[in-house]
Every structure is written in C-alpha cells, then in structure tokens.
C-alpha cells in the first residue's frame, strides 16, 4: 500500500533520514514515535506525497511518486485521509462545509453525499456544531472534525500527525477509539505521536506496530514500549 525503498531525505542543513525501507501493509496499524524534531511530520509527508525523497523510492498504491505529476499525487491523495495536529480548516467555511471539502475538491457534489456527511458528523459527535466556524470549535472538536474530514472519501489509508496533541486524556482516548474503529473496518492507519501512553492504551485494543525514529533511521520499536 505504502512502500519506502532505500529512502533518504535531506534538508539544506543535512540528512534527516537515510536508507529507510519500509512497507505499510493493507489493514495494518502503525504508530510512529520519536522525540520532537526527529522528523515524524517529514516522514508522514513522504508517506502521503507532500514531499519527495532526495534518494530512494516511495510507492503509494503501486505508483512511484517520482513519476507522478502534482495533480496525479493530489488525485492519489483522495484515497488517503490525512489528519494534521493543527487540523487545517478553511476558517470562512462552516464545519459541515469543511468536512465536505474533499468531496468538492474531487468534483463530487456535496449534496450527493449528504447522508454520509451527517453520519460522519454523528460518528464524531459534532452534529450540533455543523454550522459553527472552525475558530469557534474547541481543540477536541477540531481534532474530531479533522478525522471526520479525513475519512469522508472512505480512504484506504489514514495518516494522522499527533492527532491527540492538543486534547486532554479523555478526548485522546476517544480519538484513539475512532482510529481503532477505522482500522477494524480495514483501513490502514499510521499515527505519529510522541505520547507513549496513547500507544500503550492502543495495544489493548488493536494489534499495532510501533516505528521509532532514531539516528536518521526508522526502526521497529522493541518491547520497552
């Protein structure tokens, strides 16, 4: 589904990753952990095509990213739900309009997916906030909304960057349950987090593998987690 082969990534300041080979199998659940600044967000961006590797090959849905145009990657991204820590909404649109953005961007009329939209808002318990503007939402509401937007296209892969970074423990457990639910529906899930307690909590609900960024490499973490 997502495959990295001998991938390296360098900023102008130096190498961030080198020689990473990894495969995220369909239906798998992965956590990505590591200290702040280790490159978790950059790694995720490589996984959803927002960045191209400086060496090696990234393959998404059997397509080599280097051979694709920007528009090809955008179309590919419709099969991936991306959830950012800072959520990234359009502040002039209501919550329901923001949730429908992937539909609009893929030239599908939001009206045709009205029922899906309502179901999703109920799933993340935000029906009552449908007409609110993003700045009016709490941190937890924004995170749940970002997750709902990430899955409205029924993607095959969910990639979440610190989805529980700005919420309390109870809300982070709630978000985790939603991610686990998606994984049980067959979605591939990759979650970057520095919150080890979240990973421990997840292990009781789902068979998750943990990847750790250390020394410019991404390695499978051991039992110490």
């Amino acid at each position, binding site marked *: 589904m997502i495959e990295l082969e001998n991938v390296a990534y360098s900023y102008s300041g130096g190498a961030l990753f080198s020689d990473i080979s990894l495969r995220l199998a369909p239906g798998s659940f992965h956590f990505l952990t590591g200290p702040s600044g280790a490159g978790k967000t950059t790694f995720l961006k490589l996984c959803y095509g927002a960045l191209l590797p400086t060496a090696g090959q990234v393959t998404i849905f059997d397509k080599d990213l280097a051979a694709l145009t920007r528009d090809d990657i*955008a179309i590919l*991204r419709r099969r991936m739900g991306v959830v950012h820590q800072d959520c*990234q909404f*359009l*502040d002039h649109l209501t919550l329901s309009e923001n949730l429908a953005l*992937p539909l609009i961007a893929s030239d599908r009329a939001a*009206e045709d997916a009205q029922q899906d939209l309502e179901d999703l808002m109920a799933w993340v318990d935000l029906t009552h906030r449908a007409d609110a503007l993003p700045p009016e939402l709490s941190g937890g509401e924004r995170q749940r909304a970002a997750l709902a937007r990430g899955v409205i296209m029924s993607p095959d892969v969910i990639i979440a960057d610190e989805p529980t970074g700005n919420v309390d423990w109870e809300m982070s457990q709630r978000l985790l349950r939603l991610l686990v639910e998606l994984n049980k529906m067959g979605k591939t899930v990759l979650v970057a987090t520095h919150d080890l307690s979240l990973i421990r909590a997840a292990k009781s609900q789902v068979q998750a593998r943990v990847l750790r960024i250390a020394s410019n490499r991404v390695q499978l973490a051991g039992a110490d987690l």
Partner: protein
Amino acid sequence: MSLLWRTDGQAGRVVPPSGFTAHLLVFAAAAMAFLAVFALALSLASGRLAARWGDELAQSATIRIVAPLEQRDAQTEAALRILQTTAGVAFARALDTEEQQALLAPWFGPELDIENLPVPQLIEVIEEDTGFDAAGLRLRLAAEVPGAVLDDHTQWRAPLVEAADRLRLLGGISIVLLAVTMAAVVTLAANAALAANAQVIKVLRLVGATDQFIAQAFVRRFTGRALAGALGGTLLGMVAVLLLPPASDAGGFLTGLGFQGLEWALPLLIPLLAAVVAFGATGWSAKRVLGELA
C-alpha cells in the same frame, strides 16, 4: 472551464472573500470599461468621418477656368466638350452665377456682383465608379483650354482621410492598452490573493484538490469580479455617450462622437473582453503561483 460555469458555486466558495481588494478590482474594471467605451466611440466616429470624407470627395472633381472675361465662356465650352469625351466622367456641368455667388457669400456677402469680376468659372465633374485618368485629362486641358485647372481633391482628401484613420487607430490602440492594463491589474490582484491564501491552497492540496481545481476557484472569482465591474462601467459609459450633444454640421467632428444604429451593441462586447482578459490573466497567474507554492 466546466467548473467556472458550475451552478452550485461550491468550488468558488473555497476561496475566502477578500473585501477591500475585491472592491478595488471591481472599480478598476469599471473604470477601464468606461474609458474603453469612449475609445470605441472615438474609433467608430473617426471611421465614419474618414469614410464620409473619402466618399464625398473621392467621386468628384472641379475644373477652374481662369481666363479673361471675353474668353471665359469659350474656354468653358471647350472644357465641357473635352469632359464629354473623357472616359470615367459621368457628368460635368458649369456652375451658374447664383451657385458661384453662394460659394463666395461667406467671404464677400450675398450682394457681390460677380458678373463683372474676373472670378474663375467653376465646372463640377462627377466621376464614374472607375474614376478618370486625371493626368491624361490635365494634358488635354493644357493643350486645348489654357485657362483650365483641374482639381481632383486629392490634396484635400488625403490628409483628412489620413487624420481620421490615425484617430481610428489611436482609438483601437487605446482599447488594446486598456485591455493590457486590465490584464496587469487582474494579474497583480490574483497574485496577491493567491499569495495571501497560501494556507487555503495548502488545505485544498491536503484534501486532494488538483492545481486545476484550485486555479479555477480563483479564476472563477476574479473573472466574475472583472465581468461585474466592466458591465457596470460599460453601462455608465454608454449612458455618458448617450448624453453627448447630437451630431450636427455646426458642431463638426466633436458632436459626432457616439454610436449609430447597431454600433450600440459593440460596447457590450467590452465586459466580455474584460472577462476573457481576467480569465486568462488569473489562469496564468494561478499556474505560476501554484508552481512556486509546490
């Protein structure tokens, strides 16, 4: 292009409203369109003037018989005989005393007794569509009617027609310059809007929007504004032209600045031109900025 004409307006809404900038663009489009209406009116009026001067003077010529009084009638008769046998001359006649007096009246008054003055006799010559050989006629007149001077109006007509043609060209150039200025204004505004909405573009890319979708959202917005502004400016310009004094001989060219008949439909092309210019300028700008933001 299809997205531009979608009726649901979903795509256009992804670009946040930009208030003051939007009003400036609408105002600029309106001002350009207003000026373009006048440039068009100038161009059309100049064209009409050139055509009129050309038509009125091109098909006629004048022969002056400058001779002593006792020879004038004989030379006039001789000139008329030559004209009757000249190919390309449809009609020729000598102006009578009253007509010549009327021509001189603005300078000497209606009481002038030209019978006893050595005023040249004028012969009006009307040409056929094919025209006549002016050089050949001059040679024949010189040989048989020594006092005859042929004036085929070329020396009058050419500079007048040229001046009118230049005015028409200036009107056309003005319209082109206004269109280019419009393109520059829209490009600047679109660049500013795209740069200011880098975050919006980032979000749209995150949710799978293609460059074409993003560009069209901006193109739609700017084309709509340019069209609205230009439509308003054009209508105001047409009203202003309508309120100009009507054409009259006394007013000459200045009162002839306006549209006639079907010409009134031409200014309505200005908003369409503005929309096309805005469409192209925003599309080009979006393509460039989206490439830079990649």
